[in-house]
């Protein structure tokens, strides 16, 4: 029989490898779109500053994408290695969604990535722009399918169960467009864009602090701050809608997120801070605003809200983690909103490139998107517990028949390998970012010679009209 320890280790392994993985897609989804915009602006205006920025971020994209790919393959095999009962039961439903992700997205990204990285001099700017667009489209299609699969686990729909105990699709459209999917997709894609704009903004700010006259950093900082200004408030609205959707379909998750141990007949409070105590069934040292919880979630201050006291104890998600991860995400979201407003104010005063305070704030917020993305995923995935398919398949019935030592050693191996590899990768990313983009910036192709004979090895990028 399975010990609980083996399952705890398998969960730890999935959470660990997922946490490392998710930050790279979050960056590459946003960066791919940003690169497409930069290349389009270059083709349209002919200004050198855009191709310089394109080549600058392309090198960073290559590293982030590579780390996303190798950590992603780990995820796709882990369903089988560590969650084989889950794979057997849900394979007929979410297997095809993931197969479509591979067929429509992974091949598209990988097939055109090489051309995007190394092909500009071989095929000319227009065809190359097509390759960039294909990669950017691929990252978005990938988000579509994997979030559909994830959302089906949160809000399963359109299924029946066959004699072997497997979930079987009854209506594929209902499976794909299950109730939480549109909200999760919008929330995650916006998160990726916001994360990227904060990274780009931080890099721009770093260089502007040293020299406010550099063309490249000025352009990237301005673009990034526009993005943050526009997307942060939209993201807060999207998050609110996502929360209302969760309240409708996964009310227990909301109880954990809000720390609502008790039911509130006449309006639930909003806990700003506190220490949720599952044994005591209350939030200790709570700082709360009465009735605000009901106002946000039910849009009425006196609306009654059920608490975890209406839910059997064995169906509770881990409350403290869900509660705190949610607060980290929301807190960072409002800081991003504040950064956007501040930048708008400085822009209006004509001090966007000369405001050290704004630049320091933007630098500080550079990693905020990643932390918010991780916190958001911890909220939604921990809040789904103790189920893998919400309300239908328990996590304890999903794991592979592996003994604890097997899972423990693989977890240890992943921890060692990831810290070694990702520490180096992040160091290289930071080193690239520490250099400002130069006039005549080269893409990866100049460092990795892949040209054949007959093609001039000089930087063959057609020069635009404008000077940087």
């Amino acid at each position, binding site marked *: 029989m399975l010990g609980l320890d083996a399952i705890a280790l398998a969960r730890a392994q999935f959470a660990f490898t997922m946490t490392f993985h998710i930050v790279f897609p979050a960056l590459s989804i946003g960066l791919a779109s940003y690169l497409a915009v930069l290349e389009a602006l270059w083709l349209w205006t002919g200004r050198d500053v855009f191709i310089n920025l394109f080549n600058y971020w392309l090198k960073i994209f*290559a*590293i982030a994408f*590579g*780390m996303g*790919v*190798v950590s*992603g*393959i780990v995820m*796709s*095999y882990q*369903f*089988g*290695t560590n969650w*084989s*009962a889950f*794979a*057997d*039961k849900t*394979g*007929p*439903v979410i*297997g095809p969604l*993931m*197969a479509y*992700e*591979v*067929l*429509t997205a*992974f*091949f598209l990204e*990988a*097939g055109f*990535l*090489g*051309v995007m*990285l*190394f*092909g500009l001099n071989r095929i000319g700017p227009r065809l190359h722009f097509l390759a960039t667009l294909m990669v950017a489209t691929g990252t978005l299609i990938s988000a579509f399918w994997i979030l559909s699969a994830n959302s089906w686990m949160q809000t399963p729909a359109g299924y029946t169960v066959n004699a*072997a105990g497997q979930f079987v*699709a009854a209506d594929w459209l209902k499976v794909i467009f299950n109730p939480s999917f549109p909200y999760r997709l919008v929330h995650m894609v916006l998160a990726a864009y916001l994360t990227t704009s904060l990274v780009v903004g931080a890099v721009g700010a770093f260089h502007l602090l040293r020299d406010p006259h550099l063309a490249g950093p000025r352009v990237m900082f301005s673009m990034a701050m526009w993005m943050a200004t526009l997307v942060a408030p939209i993201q807060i609205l999207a998050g609110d809608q996502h929360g209302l959707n969760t309240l409708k379909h996964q009310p227990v998750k909301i109880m954990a997120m809000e720390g609502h141990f008790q039911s509130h007949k006449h309006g639930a409070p909003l806990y700003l801070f506190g220490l949720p105590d599952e044994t005591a069934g209350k939030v200790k040292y709570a700082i709360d605003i009465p009735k605000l919880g009901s106002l946000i979630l039910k849009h009425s201050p006196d609306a009654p809200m059920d608490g975890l006291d209406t839910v059997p104890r064995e169906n509770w998600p881990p409350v403290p983690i869900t509660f705190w991860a949610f607060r980290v995400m929301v807190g960072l979201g409002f800081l991003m909103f504040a950064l956007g407003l501040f930048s708008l104010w400085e822009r209006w005063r004509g001090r966007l490139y000369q405001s050290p305070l704004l630049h320091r704030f933007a630098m500080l917020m550079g990693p905020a998107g990643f932390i918010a993305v991780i916190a958001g995923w911890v909220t939604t995935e921990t809040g789904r517990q103790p189920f893998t398919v919400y309300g239908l398949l328990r996590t304890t019935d999903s794991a*592979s*028949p*592996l003994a604890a*030592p*097997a899972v423990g050693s*693989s977890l240890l191996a*992943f921890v060692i*390998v990831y810290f070694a*590899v990702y520490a*180096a*990768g992040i160091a290289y990313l930071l*080193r690239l970012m520490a250099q400002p983009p130069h006039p005549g910036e080269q893409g*990866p192709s*100049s*460092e990795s*010679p*892949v*040209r054949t*004979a007959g093609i001039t*090895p000089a930087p063959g990028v057609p020069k635009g009209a404008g000077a940087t």
Partner: protein
Amino acid sequence: MNASIDITTVWAFIIAFAVFVYVVMDGFDLGLGILFPLFPAKADRDVITNTVAPVWDGNETWLVLGGGGLMAAFPLAYAVLLPAIYTPVIAMLVGLIFRGVAFEFRWRTRAQRNRWDIAFTGGSWLAALAQGVALGAILQGVHVEGRQYAGGWWDWLTPFSLLTGVSLVIGYALLGATWLILKTEGELRDKAYRISWYLLFAMLAAIGAVSVATPLLTIKYAQRWFTWPNVVLTAPVPLAVAVVTALLLKSLAERQDRRPFFLTLLLFLLSYAGLGISMYPYIVPQSITIWQAAAPLNSQLFMLVGVAILIPLILVYTGWAYWVFRGKVRPESGYH
């Protein structure tokens, strides 16, 4: 029901196709990593990695299709096999991580360049060996109870699985060496020719050893190969191996740069067909057939639509990417 049976067979071929494409395409990438220690000069190593830098990521995607497709089309087989080969799979993933990041990282540093070359080599060896061991572990059969793997943590480790592991390392190395013949010139290519001779004989020995050892695993494999009327189907396979080997020897002797790589692909295809003959119609040898493991008809149909449209499309644009980077890779171009 008849329709369902047919589509299941179609799906078995689709998965087999995806795995085969992965084996040969990432096979030559991994082969380059396996051969890295034989090319210590930095200039050579730069050329070697540049022959695959634009395409390795697409090559590796076939592995995700093989795994993801198996979960979708044969979820029971995916659920039984992966825990059975747990350690080789984890080792493969770790190997692929080191190999994959090394492609980028080795250009990002001068001081530590050798460290990522070691990661590139070690990752390639580990991934290739683990894949071969996993193949052997599956061929020798796994212990199944109900709908789950019921064997132990170390069941995969046997002399047979080690033999298939070493054989795949040799096979990948031969693919890598003949790829270098195709894509390079000068002394680098000459060296690749010399290495290919040794590797070809090693590969023939490996094919022979696995061919002898497989029927000894279980009487069913022997019956499959050596009883009438199966012999009509199976006998041409070793004959074809002999013909391809002769052509390969000729092309190496006559130094025809293009042929050795494609003939090696044929050699892989024949070995792969041999494996298919041994396994069919089992997907978990001797315990679960493709029909027992198959996903319900509507899952198969839903995906078949996508496969029918998208696989040809994928082959077209992947072919285009190879076309863009066609020809010999030279060390002097564009490097600073």
